[in-house]
């Protein structure tokens, strides 16, 4: 396609200047700072940001006119940062001018699919309208499709979703999220989705060291700190926990730390007659982690709490 000669269009552009002006460097830095590990994800996001930035310039130069497809799919285990990255993604897309506001609407099957005939379409449309101008994040999207029940209303939601994803690309970006293998099955039974999604990002599980770093970060944000012994206990805890069922990566870590804080508060309360320093209030001792059921090899009774959190 020949560039269209137009007086309003610049002859040349400075990519660096546009990059700085867009302010996405800030978001990418924030992503680097706040999210531990996830190197492949960060690389992909930088690539996507670069592509979108160049596309934007090409549009300004009159080389393309169409909006690129921006719908994405985030796959990975629970607690690997999909929602957090989706929030940042909304921010990046907004700064690049692909969406009008940086709001993210998070929904699951329940928000889209109705309970009786004729209930689904208005419900789905309501959600879509709410998300327009921003990003719609569908968590555990594979639940929309239930092949075992042919009268399931999920199919209706899928059809409306596909229609809007295709026809109103300027108004809405859809991000689907879920476990990798179940999403794979979802896409193979709904080929329409696969072809409308431009970017597939896979979120790897965290390593033990990364989880430890995440724990440190969470504690730091809340002004807590570990004693050296507690640090070791925390490392042991992570090792144990990773091997047990229902492990949800960073979310499990956050829950474990919440429980440690709970135990610390109980310990402090028991010696309430003494004077406490700020140091006391900040310190998490090894015992607070060691008493966890995880060290006894089972989390059967922890599980319900974990899932509720």
């Amino acid at each position, binding site marked *: 396609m020949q560039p269209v000669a137009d007086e309003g269009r610049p002859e040349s552009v400075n990519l660096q200047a546009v990059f700085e002006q867009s302010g996405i460097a800030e978001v990418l830095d924030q992503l680097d700072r706040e999210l531990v590990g996830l190197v492949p994800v960060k690389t992909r996001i930088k690539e996507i940001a670069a592509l979108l930035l160049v596309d934007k310039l090409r549009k300004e130069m009159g080389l393309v006119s169409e909006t690129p497809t921006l719908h994405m799919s985030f796959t990975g285990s629970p607690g690997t940062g999909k929602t957090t990255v989706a929030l940042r993604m909304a921010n990046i897309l907004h700064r690049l001018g692909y969406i009008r506001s940086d709001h993210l609407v998070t929904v699951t099957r329940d928000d889209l699919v109705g309970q009786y005939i004729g209930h689904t379409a208005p419900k789905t449309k309501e959600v879509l309208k709410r998300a327009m101008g921003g990003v719609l994040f569908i968590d555990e999207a594979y639940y929309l499709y239930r092949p075992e029940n042919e009268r399931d209303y999920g199919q209706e939601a899928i059809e409306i979703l596909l229609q809007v994803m295709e026809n109103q690309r300027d*108004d809405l970006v859809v991000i689907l999220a879920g476990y990798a293998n179940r999403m794979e099955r979802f896409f193979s039974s709904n080929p329409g989705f696969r072809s409308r999604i431009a970017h597939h990002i896979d979120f790897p599980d965290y390593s033990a060291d990364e989880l430890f770093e995440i724990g440190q970060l969470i504690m730091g944000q809340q002004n807590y700190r570990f004693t050296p012994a507690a640090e070791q206990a925390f490392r042991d805890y992570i090792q144990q926990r990773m091997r047990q069922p229902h492990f949800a990566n960073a979310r499990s870590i956050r829950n474990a730390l919440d429980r440690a804080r709970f135990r610390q508060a109980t310990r402090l309360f028991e010696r309430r007659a003494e004077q406490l320093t700020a140091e006391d209030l900040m310190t998490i001792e090894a015992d607070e982690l060691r008493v966890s059921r995880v060290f006894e090899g089972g989390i059967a009774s922890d599980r319900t709490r974990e899932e509720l959190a």
Partner: protein
Amino acid sequence: MRITQGTFSFLPDLTDQQITKQIRYCLDKGWALNVEYTDDPHPRNTYWEMWGVPMFDLRDPAGVLYEVNQCRKAFPDTYIRLSAFDASPGWESIRLSIIVQRPKEEPGFTLERTEHEGRRIGYRTRAYSANKPVGERY
């Protein structure tokens, strides 16, 4: 005869782009938008049919415009207006109302004089289209 009621009704009809800007203004003010339609153009016809429920939790004009277009598709030849409600005083009060679609032909009104006792004369307006039953007027 062109019906003029609501905001900007003496201007030429707003384009979708202009309507979008008006919706944006309303959303920024925190007003809820509502789509209504009617085929009775009488100025005292205050309560138009509602197209769905008022949209309370939208952030972007695209959602409202989507409903306007759905309504236009369902009723291609009626009046459609968009009203914005402000709930900040504690009740819903209309702040803005724009006609976003009108029938291709608007036959207008007839003025009828009714004679009463003495030489008193009453006046009433009647839309020519209102001579036909509802649903067949335009």
